[in-house]
């Protein structure tokens, strides 16, 4: 279909001076620009967090290594975890949600554009605050620097007694501030999806991406708020002399664990549900089939959302809970594998019998299917409390959740980058470089995280800065670190591809994938108002209906 009818309003005019353009970006309330700001900001932190991981892996490459001191190692794993979860994964997913949801539901912007800008700048400020700790965290007695209490910051390590100076305060405040941003964005996503859909787009006709992000936003509201509350309590303890987590005065350190993981486990689903959303958009388009089992996909997603609120204490089996609590959390954790399994079968059924085009986005999604399955299997293993007692806090756990976050989430995210890059930039990416990125990354990923399971089973605990030779861990740690360098090389290819394609890529056109959702009906990149006339839909694949008036989808839905 032709899409040249509405030109970018300023395209013929000479570009405004740099300062003016920067000013426009800083003051923007446009969902597309905020989405891109979120994504670029998160990419920056992805690189920083990756550098911190690399420092840790170099330290662990051989026994008795002296690349960094134990103190620096503690800061590195704390900053790596905090950065990757709060300032890389979440903003990047919010960025895609921001950019895509209004376009996919046929709206001109989010429901609350100014709240949107506010949320982004809160998140951005939170990230800066965390990293200022490297400069300003040196409080009393020269203790501290960057936070070094681990990303889940168990009490009583975070009390004034054990964590002097201000490094922990930087951690608390940065998460508090970015938490407000996350809640703001979640409110915005829900209001946008419920109140801004174009004519004819009933809830049952929304693209799956909108449904999954709706669930994700609900989880953010219910999960990030408890973290905010827990951080407020920790601030009361640290600044006003309260006793919430002070065991000397009758307080409970286990309370903090519960409060943190009430946030921490749904957070995993906050991250993985948008990843499912990308897979649910990309796999049908590159299989040339409509998604298999749309209603079941929606039901499974909402089901995952509900169950994920009741599994948090599987992070605490090793703490020693009552057997009733252990049993409950074992069963609820295993139960969540059911809707997740349903989704995997639906994606496979979507591909089954389709004309599969192995472009880069599809490659990443296929790899995601396999890797997420393995991550889920080790998850079911760890969900069994006796097994967890053996391997809790070992590198097996680290390998498991990196399999989820890197092998599942990051892979689909790269798929999403390649899939929507033509829409966001108006240019095609370089397919050869994209494939090179994929193969390098999948080799690096498997070198690192497949072999990381083994030292875990052999008893290597997490968060140790070095280890004795002769325990059978040496060779595995060497392989894991080599894998990190392959991953780093693939990231260079990825960033190089983005830059090269942005400046030199071919013009993409409005619908390079022959896809079916509304974002492909407008120009690439879309004009500030998205749609000259608000579209009207009759099925889940409006562009299919347009191109095939003789056999439209709405006859069958």
């Amino acid at each position: 279909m032709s899409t040249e009818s509405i030109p970018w309003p300023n395209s013929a005019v000479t570009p405004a001076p740099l300062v003016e353009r920067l000013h426009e970006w800083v003051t923007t309330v446009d969902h597309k620009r905020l989405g891109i700001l979120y994504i670029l900001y998160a990419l920056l932190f992805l690189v920083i967090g990756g550098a911190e991981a690399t420092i840790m892996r170099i330290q662990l490459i051989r026994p008795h290594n002296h690349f960094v001191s134990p103190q620096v190692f503690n800061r590195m794993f704390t900053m790596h975890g905090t950065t990757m979860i709060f300032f890389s994964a979440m903003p990047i997913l919010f960025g895609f949600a921001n950019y895509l949801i209004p376009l996919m539901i046929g709206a001109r912007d989010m429901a609350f554009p100014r709240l949107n800008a506010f949320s982004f700048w809160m998140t951005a400020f939170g990230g800066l605050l965390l990293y200022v700790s490297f400069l300003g965290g040196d409080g009393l007695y020269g203790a501290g620097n960057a936070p070094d209490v681990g990303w889940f910051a168990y009490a009583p390590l975070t009390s004034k007694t054990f964590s002097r100076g201000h490094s922990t305060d930087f951690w608390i405040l940065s998460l508090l501030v970015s938490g407000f941003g996350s809640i703001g964005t979640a409110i915005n996503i829900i209001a946008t999806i419920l109140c801004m859909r174009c004519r004819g787009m009933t809830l049952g006709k929304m693209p799956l991406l909108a449904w999954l992000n709706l669930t994700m936003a609900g989880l953010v509201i219910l999960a990030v708020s408890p973290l905010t509350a827990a951080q407020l309590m920790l601030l009361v303890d640290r600044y006003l002399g309260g006793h919430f987590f002070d065991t000397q005065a009758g307080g409970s350190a286990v309370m903090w664990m519960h409060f943190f993981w009430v946030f921490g486990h749904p957070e995993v689903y906050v991250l993985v549900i948008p990843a499912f959303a990308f897979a649910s958009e990309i796999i049908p388009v590159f299989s040339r089939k409509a998604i298999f089992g749309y209603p079941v996909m929606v039901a499974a997603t909402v089901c995952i959302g509900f169950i994920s609120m009741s599994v948090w204490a599987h992070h605490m089996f090793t703490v020693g809970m009552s057997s009733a609590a252990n049993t409950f959390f074992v069963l609820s954790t295993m139960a969540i594998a059911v809707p997740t399994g349903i989704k995997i079968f639906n994606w496979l059924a979507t591909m089954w019998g389709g004309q599969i085009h192995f472009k880069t986005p599809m490659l990443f999604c296929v790899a995601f299917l396999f890797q997420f399955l393995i991550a889920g299997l080790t998850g079911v293993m760890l969900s069994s409390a006796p097994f967890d007692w053996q391997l809790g806090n070992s590198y097996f756990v680290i390998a498991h959740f990196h399999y989820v976050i890197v092998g599942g989430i990051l892979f689909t995210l790269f798929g999403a980058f390649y899939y929507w890059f033509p829409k966001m930039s108006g240019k095609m990416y370089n397919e050869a470089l994209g494939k090179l990125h994929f193969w390098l990354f999948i080799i690096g990923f498997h070198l690192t995280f497949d072999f990381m399971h083994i030292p875990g089973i052999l008893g290597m605990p997490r968060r140790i800065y070095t280890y004795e030779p002769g325990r059978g861990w040496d060779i595995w740690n060497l392989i894991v670190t080599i894998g990190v360098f392959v991953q780093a090389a693939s990231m260079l290819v990825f960033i190089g591809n983005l830059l090269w394609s942005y400046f030199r890529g071919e013009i993409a056109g409005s619908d390079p994938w022959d896809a079916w959702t509304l974002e492909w009906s407008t120009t690439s990149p879309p004009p500030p108002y998205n749609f000259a006339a608000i579209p009207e839909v009759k099925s889940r694949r409006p562009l299919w209906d347009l191109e095939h008036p003789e056999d439209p989808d709405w006859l069958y839905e």
Partner: protein
Amino acid sequence: MSAPSATMPEANIPWSLPARGPVGMYCLIAAETAIFTIFVVAYIFYIGKSLSGPQPQDVLRVPIFFTICLLSSSLTMHFAVKLLRGGRMRSFGLWWLLTIALGTIFLVGTFREWRHLIYDEGLTIQTNLFGTTYYSLVGLHAFHVTVGLLALATVSIFTLLGHVRQEHAERAEVLSLYWHFVDVVWVVVFVVVYVIGR
């Protein structure tokens, strides 16, 4: 065909969606509920776990009058919004001011209670677990009342300047949702702190 119109010729179905204001406010209320839930859980978990006095049964007095004031402010708020929707600006302004007055009386009550506890009973946030959880939970609620009062005061300033008109009723209603929520939270706090906790 021009790109953005994915219009079907015969599509002419009725189409209405919820207003974004109330939806946004309900989401905010859900988030606030989660925050308060954590504080309430902490309060209940720590009942009777203080290692030293004073204990709640010795020092807490049930603030019945101030509770009545806060709860009736929800009622006056409801009337005020109804009057605004009917376009009766003078009565709206009066009921709105009455709401602010009742909310302020409640805050005065909290202030007097805290002064009594701090100066007469020697209970501060540092004294024991009861002090920590009590001041945090009641303080968090009082903070929300304060924020609500500031928002209400902003509206009344605009009313006095004549900027509030009948078509703003929906926005006032969104604000009233928040105010009702703060009242409901007080019912929970009241039950937990002054009934169960004693």
